[in-house]
């Protein structure tokens, strides 16, 4: 039997990230604490290099490699670029935060980069096996990251909860995968799709597998009723880690759904559409209602994430190319908003002070008008007010739902987005209408300030001219 080496060119960015991560791991061992910024620099360099490689090899037509387990296509490449971008922002925002808390260690960056690699694998997976591998690589990195501050009991509890529930979800996913393998005889998504198309929807084992798969995915996404871990993890983890969990992995999760449900099991759309409708309705309702009662802003944003996941599912369940493009646009915009929101939270934290409560935002306009403005833009964008990117995201998914006749679902969505606007407004109220209880200056390094400004302004720019990003999304999904 001859061994034919697969084509490694399409996985060049992945190989680069893997090599660099190992290099960071080794180099970091030889560094003293005061030289730790070298680790940080290397990590950013890795992301930059990966971005360049992805850009240079940008796939205009899909290429499969690794014996069908891996695909490089435009959707994957676009998502990867945003994964690098948001991860780079995460590393930057958390740098000073980590340093002030004596958490400025190589582990954070190594685990973060392995997480990025996991996401890249998820995004480009073309078989159920590689989907699972990527997901686990990401999840295991995240479990460890949550407890990066190992002396914090809250973080330990959150990590434990995350680990147990996450493992359960992985189990469900594997069980679903094994059933699908049993029904179709393959894990390659193309072959699964062919077999599923031939057998039709009557195959009980296949549908059974689909149910487990959707349950597993919902766990990872944090869709209601599988969301219980999400608020605890968001609140318990150090803000720098919450920032990471809350941003780039959502892009990977979107890709996961696209690969498995749409590419692999597209012929079962009638089945998974109903499941996603239930998940979307519950997520939008629960997320928005419970967020109102929160006083901790990280927990509030966790529930807000849940509701945004619901909206994103609205686009996917429409089951049309427009709907997928809308969901992709939604996810990208959401990640930009989440990175910005947690970024502002992290910048408000100082040595010995953790900005966690909505009240910590009181009077921000008096203390730092520009940061206040950025945070207001992010909140208004999350609420879906126009001239901000969040509005177009909501509009596109609603339009996708209306186009396939799900008008009631769109009405449900907008009603709850009005309810949701309340808690975003409450943050703006604290920033602008209340007087500050603290007088300490907010210290922000110049590079962070530039990036947070760019982050906030990007929402306005996309809001004024959403066409570019919309086109990228729909073109990426076409081929």
């Amino acid at each position, binding site marked *: 039997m001859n061994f034919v080496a697969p084509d490694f060119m399409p996985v060049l960015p992945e190989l680069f990230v893997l090599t660099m991560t190992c290099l960071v791991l080794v180099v970091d061992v030889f560094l003293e604490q005061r030289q730790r910024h070298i680790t940080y620099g290397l990590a950013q360099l890795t992301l930059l290099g990966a971005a360049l490689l992805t850009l240079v090899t940008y796939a205009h037509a899909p290429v499969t490699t690794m014996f069908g387990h891996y695909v490089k296509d435009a959707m994957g490449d676009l998502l990867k670029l945003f994964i690098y971008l948001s991860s780079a922002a995460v590393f930057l925002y958390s740098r000073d935060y980590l340093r002030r808390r004596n958490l400025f260690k190589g582990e954070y960056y190594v685990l973060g980069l392995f997480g990025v690699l996991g996401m890249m694998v998820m995004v480009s997976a073309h078989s159920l096996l590689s989907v699972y591998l990527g997901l686990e690589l990401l999840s295991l990195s995240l479990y460890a990251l949550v407890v990066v501050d190992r002396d914090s009991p809250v973080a330990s509890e959150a990590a434990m909860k995350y680990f147990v529930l996450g493992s359960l979800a992985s189990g469900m996913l594997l069980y679903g995968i094994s059933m699908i393998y049993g029904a179709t005889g393959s894990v390659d998504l193309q072959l699964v799709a062919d077999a599923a198309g031939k057998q039709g929807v009557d195959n009980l084992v296949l549908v059974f597998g689909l149910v487990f798969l959707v349950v597993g995915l919902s766990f990872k996404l944090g869709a209601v009723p599988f969301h219980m871990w999400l608020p605890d993890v968001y609140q318990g983890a150090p803000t720098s880690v919450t920032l990471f969990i809350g941003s780039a992995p959502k892009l990977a999760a979107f890709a996961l759904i696209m690969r498995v449900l749409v590419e692999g099991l597209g012929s079962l759309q009638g089945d998974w559409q109903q499941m996603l409708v239930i998940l979307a309705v519950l997520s939008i309702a629960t997320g928005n209602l419970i967020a109102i009662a929160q006083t901790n802003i990280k927990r509030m944003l966790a529930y807000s994430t849940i509701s945004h996941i619901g909206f994103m599912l609205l686009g996917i369940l429409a089951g049309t190319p427009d709907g997928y493009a809308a969901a992709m646009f939604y996810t990208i915009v959401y990640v930009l908003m989440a990175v910005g929101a947690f970024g502002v939270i992290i910048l408000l934290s100082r040595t010995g002070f953790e900005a966690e409560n909505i009240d910590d935002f009181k009077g921000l*306009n008096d203390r730092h008008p520009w940061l206040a403005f950025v945070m207001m833009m992010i909140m208004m964008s999350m609420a879906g007010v*126009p001239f901000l990117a969040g509005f177009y995201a909501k509009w596109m998914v609603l339009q996708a739902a209306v186009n396939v006749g799900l008008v009631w679902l769109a*009405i449900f969505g*907008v009603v709850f987005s009005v309810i949701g606007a309340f808690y975003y407004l409450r943050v703006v109220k604290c920033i602008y209408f209340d007087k500050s209880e603290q007088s300490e200056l907010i210290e922000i390094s110049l590079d962070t300030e530039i990036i947070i400004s760019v982050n906030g302004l990007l929402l306005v720019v996309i809001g004024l001219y959403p066409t570019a990003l919309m086109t990228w999304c729909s073109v990426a999904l076409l081929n």
Partner: protein
Amino acid sequence: MLSELPLLSLAIWFPILGGVAVLFVGDDNPGRAKALTLTVAILTFLFSIPLFTLFDSTTATMQFEELLPWIPAFSVNYHLGVDGFSMPLILLTAFMTVVVVIAGWEVIQYRIAQYMAAFLIMAGLMIGVFAALDAMLFYVFFEAMLIPMFLIIGIWGGPRRVYATIKFFLYTFLGSVFMLIALIYMYSQSNSFEILDFHRLPLSLHEQVLIFFAFLLGFAVKVPMWPVHTWLPDAHVEAPTGGSVILAAITLKIGGYGFLRFALPITPDAANLLDWLVITMSLVAVVYISLVALIQQDMKKLIAYSSIAHMGFVTLGFFIVFGIYRHTGSLSGATLGIEGGMVQMVSHGFISGALFLCVGVLYDRMHSRQIKDYGGVVNTMPVFAMFMVLFGMANAGLPGTSGFIGEFMVILSSFRANFWLAFLAATTLMLGAAYTLWLIKRVIFGDIGNSQVAALEDVSTREIVMLGLLAAAVLLLGVWPDPLTSVMHASVENLLQHITATKL
């Protein structure tokens, strides 16, 4: 040469960019920020004047059109243009912005640059609402207005400002999201977001009724019509003077404008079917809200309720046309209804804005809005008393002031539909006079109420300028309304032709 400039874009983006510039000047340079704001506001008004002078009032087609693709994926265009309905409202907006900037000149001490910038941005967005010919562009401007107004009420407002501003935001937001669904639905039917394409889009009665309710919800909250008016008294009372003026003078008009631009022409059959509903709501506003205004103890609240009652006239005028058409079979009287509603909108913009400014003048001196704290103001502030009495008379609909024209036209046209409708509407002449004149009597006339009133100083030059501008406008429109009615005449005729032809 002037007509080749993109005047509408200029009127929208110049104040918005000016507002951003004012933000950058910052609160550390209040003098420079104020001067810049006033310059931008006056220039914006000057840019909007050619819209009036170059306007061709013989045609109902859109003028000063600008068309650029904006979001081609969903065929959304940056499409601007004005007709006889929107052009006067754009002028009103630009004019009131100047007045508001003057009004806030010395009064606002806290974060003056942010205050001024908010009003400039607000002005640009409101002009955008009136100029947009693409439904999505309209919606975007319509919603974006919420942010500056939310901040204006919340930062510079009174003691209960947080409650008032969140209520304002959520009410309006809830009203408009249904409109968004309606717009998306119509896009899925027509593959276009052009408002004029929506006008031609055939829709079944069932669809029309649902879309009509979506519009009704969105615009009735904005107008505001009874029973969704409760945000207005709160917002008005808590807002700073400038905020109240803009709310009353312009944002309420957007609701009325929305009926003319969307609800009536897009869903004529549903509007015909359900005109009784809107007319009932309008008459409740006219009669019941007038009675509510009568018992108010707070001057601002009284004027707020009076605004609701006066806006009831506007919606009555717009929807009475179906009754006239059914009753007489001709359109001749119907013109009067819609034109009356439009005149009422513009006139109410001047009068209510002026009354809020008057209350603001008093409040700045006494820090009270309670009627009982005043009395005999005429003795210490004769010039001010003259203005306030003039605006009070205009509010009561005295002939010779702009308040009379609109009300008279609407009442006249309702007579052609139904005597009792007209009778109920005409009670406003009585009730409006009652609550306004009683307010004037208690605040302005009589003996000096207390030592604080005795120490009042009369209006400054700045205040005379802002009140004088409005007084001139009220009187001019009162004796010579023709420039206003003649520019809208062709558009009104066109609209009537359109809405009386069934879409079914």
